[in-house]
């Protein structure tokens, strides 16, 4: 049977970077999985994930645990949020995220996204986030994905791997 879990593109940052984009995503898969290991160059700013260059029509529900309490937030936002370790955290620690996008080629359904993120630190407060995301723009195939910190830059050695998963 065919290999259906395929690396589309990998990006490893050799210097601090303002944003990364996977463009021209092939239309040959069923689902996409974006795996992120990243850190912010300064004290704040999460990773914001957008599709096809759009910064509108995103909503989410987030469940967060910080080691002391659990909470939940929601919003209409400019992109889907993924936790980023700030520069104040223990050196060499990076956040870790899985972003799963089923049926990214659909032209009839909004895109429902699942994200799991952790930012362990072995020092100050760290976070685990579960996110339900929806991109409710006019349904169109996702052809590009952009990741941008909402403040500052991605740190050197941050990595971004985009996989395609096919159901046949």
């Amino acid at each position, binding site marked *: 049977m065919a*290999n*259906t879990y395929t690396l589309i593109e990998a990006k490893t940052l050799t210097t601090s970077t303002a944003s990364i984009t996977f463009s021209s995503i092939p239309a040959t898969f069923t689902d996409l999985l974006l795996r992120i290991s990243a850190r912010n160059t300064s004290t704040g700013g999460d990773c914001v994930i957008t599709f096809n260059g759009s910064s509108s029509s995103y*909503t989410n529900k987030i*469940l967060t645990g910080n080691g002391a309490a659990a909470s939940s937030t929601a919003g209409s936002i400019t992109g889907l949020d993924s936790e980023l370790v700030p520069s104040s955290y223990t050196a060499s620690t990076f956040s870790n995220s899985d972003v*799963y996008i089923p049926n990214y080629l659909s032209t009839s359904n909004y895109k429902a*996204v699942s994200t799991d993120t952790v930012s362990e630190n072995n020092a100050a407060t760290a976070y685990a986030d579960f996110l339900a995301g929806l991109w409710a723009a006019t349904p169109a195939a996702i052809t590009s994905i952009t990741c941008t910190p909402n403040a500052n830059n991605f740190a050197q050695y941050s990595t971004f791997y985009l996989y395609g998963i096919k159901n046949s």
Partner: protein
Amino acid sequence: MAAGATYEPIATTTASGSVSFVTFSSISASYTDLILVTNCGCVSGAAALAVQMGTGSLDTATNYSTTWLSGNGTNAASGRVTSNSYLYIDARVVLPLSVTANAIIQFQNYKNTTTYKTILSRYNDAAGETVAGVGLWRSTGAINTIKIYNDNSNNFVSGSTFTLYGIAAA
């Protein structure tokens, strides 16, 4: 995870018209773990996403338990159900009326015949809740059939997709 030949589609279904359930049967024993991915909605929201499994036939007895952590945008909560006749995947919330929910359900070591089976799940509906769950099927039987449905006998909407993948350790 390096790209490899161990993440293979076993079967996939796209609902053409509304369907009440999807069953994967005669599941191959060639893998180590299973992953079921769905992108779905329900014709009536008054239903929770449910899963049963079995060896040869579905186990409909009260051999399932689920513990979950959920967030609805305002509150975080945790709950559990024991000795139930199916697994909850979505913390008993209502399903959306369009194909805007997804769930990723992992069945670890599904074919072993010595231990009960543990299931990890994630459910997402940006208009409802995000849920992380752990389930237990109290059976030492190998899983070779899985049913996904909702617990209020409502149908999935047309366009809902369901795919079962096999993960091989070697």
